[in-house]
């Protein structure tokens, strides 16, 4: 069995690799922080558009967080881009639904909007107390607990009687968590919004510039995104207010496709 014992040289290599990995992670974190600080500084100097670009760069690099999205929303809001701010706040709320700052700014931005908004129903508000990732963790933990308990009982069948209460509790917990996760996932999947990002947008009956005008929507108006064709997006603001807008005039929001 001596051949399985780690050789000193291998141990050194592993330690070196771990140290290099840690160093890279630290440097990356410092770099992210530096970019974030730089964008914050631009915001404090009143250069809101530049600050927004800085935050967006972080997001594009896969370094998004609720704070980055929240600050991006603030930068857009201060730049007068209410629609883009609403989208950023909604994305921040998807990651941190209980953050009172995010909730307050989203509400504040919506109050500035002239036009329709998509507000959640009571059950959606209840589900929204946790983010989809939190629901995923909860369901994952519930599945782990249930299966590990079952695994333990395979090894110790004699404990079955005494562990009945724990099994029932784990089953109920797993069912509730999985039910909540399923509902949250279905809700996220069904939430497809197009937020107007230009001061005034003409919504047309068809996906052509010559199509007759259906209605007019204003910056920040939240419309349901129902279809897409070429560079046009079909939106609806109610059962009888359906039309098409150019994709460049809206920001699309889908909780499952935020990247």
């Amino acid at each position, binding site marked *: 069995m001596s051949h399985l014992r780690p050789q000193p040289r291998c141990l050194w290599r592993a330690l070196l690799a771990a140290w290099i990995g840690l160093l890279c992670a630290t440097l990356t974190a410092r770099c992210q922080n530096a970019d*974030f600080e730089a964008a914050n500084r631009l915001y404090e100097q009143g250069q809101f558009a530049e600050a927004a670009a800085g935050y967006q760069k972080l997001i594009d690099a896969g370094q998004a*967080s609720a*704070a*980055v999205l929240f600050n991006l929303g603030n930068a857009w*809001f201060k730049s007068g881009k209410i629609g883009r701010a609403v989208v950023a706040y909604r994305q921040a709320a998807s990651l941190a639904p209980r953050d009172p700052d995010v909730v307050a700014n989203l509400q504040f931005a919506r109050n500035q909007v002239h036009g329709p908004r998509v507000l959640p129903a009571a059950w959606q508000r209840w589900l929204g107390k946790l983010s989809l990732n939190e629901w995923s963790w909860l369901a*994952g933990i519930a599945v782990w607990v249930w299966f590990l308990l079952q*695994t333990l009982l395979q090894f110790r*069948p004699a404990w079955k009687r005494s562990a009945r209460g724990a099994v029932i509790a784990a089953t109920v917990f797993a069912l509730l968590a999985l039910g909540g996760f399923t509902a949250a996932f279905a809700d996220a999947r069904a939430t497809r919004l197009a937020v107007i990002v230009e001061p005034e947008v003409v919504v047309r009956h068809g996906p052509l510039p010559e199509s007759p005008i259906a209605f007019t929507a204003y910056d920040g108006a939240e419309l349901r995104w129902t279809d897409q064709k070429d560079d046009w997006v079909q939106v609806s603001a109610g059962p009888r207010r359906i039309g098409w807008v150019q994709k460049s005039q809206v920001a699309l929001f889908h909780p*499952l496709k935020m990247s």
Partner: protein
Amino acid sequence: MPRRAFIRARFAGFWAAVLVALAAAFVAPAATFTASLDRNQIVLGESVTLALTFSGGNPQDVPNPPDIPNLDIAYIGPSSQFSLIQGRVSSIVTHNFQVTPRQAGDYTIPALRATVGGQLLSTQPLTLRVLKPSAPTPEAMASGSQVAFLRLVVPKTEIFVGETVPVQLQLCLRREVQGISNFQLTSLPAEGFLVGKMVQGQRGQAQIGNALYSVIPLLLPVKALSAGNLTLGPATASALLEVPSANRRRDPFFERFGFPDLLGGTEQKQVVLASEAVPLQTLPLPAQNRPANFNGAVGTFTLSLTASPTNLTAGDPITVKVQISGRGALDTLTLPEPSWAGFKVYPATSKLDTTDALGLEGTKYFEQVVVPETASVQALPSFTFSFFDPEQKVYRTLSHPPVPLLVRPGGSASVPALAADRHAGQNQSPAQDIVHIKQRIGAVGQLQPLVFRPWFLGLQALPVLAFLGAAVWRRRTEQLANNPRLRRQRHVARIIRDGLAELRRFAAANDSEAFFATVVRLLQERLGERLDAPASAITEAVIEEKLRPRGVPEELLTPLHDLFQLCNQVRYAPLKTSQELSALIPQIESLLARLEEVKP
């Protein structure tokens, strides 16, 4: 022949008549163009039909009546008529317009021009007089001569500015009115008032004078905006009533039983209704004893407040719920703003829950999140709400005492300095700006949800695999427990595995006695397991007694016999070298393996 001549003469006459008629048709009469109204005098709320009639030809373009202030003119459609008079065919085409006035007064529709058959024709100007509808006299109402009328009922004639009162517009219909449709409130002059959304109330009956009327109440919330002697109304409306036809067939038999119109016979009648104007005195709110925090609420209200949690760490949010219940203009109520020094304040949200159709009674719920910034905060400030009670004609102030708080010093979760500073000067108007940016980046990562990340899905597979592995292990364990032969087989396999290792060790140590004793033990274990006999009962004799009868091949029995012999010899002459012992091990190993093939 005379009959044929007669028929021929008849046909000749017929064709001559046709030719004359056609010739007459081609000789067109002079074209004319006239305009007419079906009535020259109507009551506001009614409509008249303007007919543009062309005879003797069709116009190139139908002239559109010009835009006349306060007169809506809408095209209805054409109608045509052909006539044959004295062999001459004439056609008349009429284009109809519906004319609806919006105000009472005299209107003139100017002369219209059209080109017909190359001829420019013109009409005469038309005049239309629109009268204000007038309410019927009380005597007419009492006598039952009115088929329908409106009444404007105000609960009191003296109201305060800001006070909202429920006004009833009663639509009274005589008993024989069988249906009503297209009801439209055409006007309700209400200068100095704000009139809310109209709600239909419960239909009832009322005895007015000698007549019994069916009453449809239409409720309107009316809020006084300015002080003075104001007038509400008169309200005017139009409706289409379904009333018994004047020339219907009456059946005395059914009339005797109270069913005069069992056989039908109704007609629709357009009516214009008007109510009397109601004078109202609106009073200004008294300046005396007006509380400093009074913000215009008029009505009767109660205040309640809850806050939670009250035992918390600095930086944690507290949800303050304020309920204002009562009667008045609830939708315009605003949250009383106490002094929020020491708190970070978020914009309040509100929800209105009304209990009556007009929305004048109910509860308005306010919810506000505040965050104590330091542990020095000891209580929520007291809430006070002032309103004017129009019934008692006094100002009232409701207050809720300060809610004590137990705030512990916070750790890293304290409010960022920038955000706190920004709100420090905005305690009175928390919703004037967005909350400031965050200073910490927090946990960064991809925006892709966890459920789409392969590592997360893989992680979820682990407990399932563990469970499946455990289930398989348990099944095998149970199988083993229920099968003693299998259990012994595995036990023997383990003994042989260990025994072979011991043989190598004994060979290396040149311990031939221990070596062959182990060989005998291994053979006993293997043969005992195969023959289902105790290992101690196995001797060389089993070769002849049990193995050979079972048909075990000779090439297996011979080396087995030799090995037993060798073991016996060595007991008495234990002189073997280490090399010789080592050379024996593969043979023993092979023999034990082949013995495993012996059928039990």
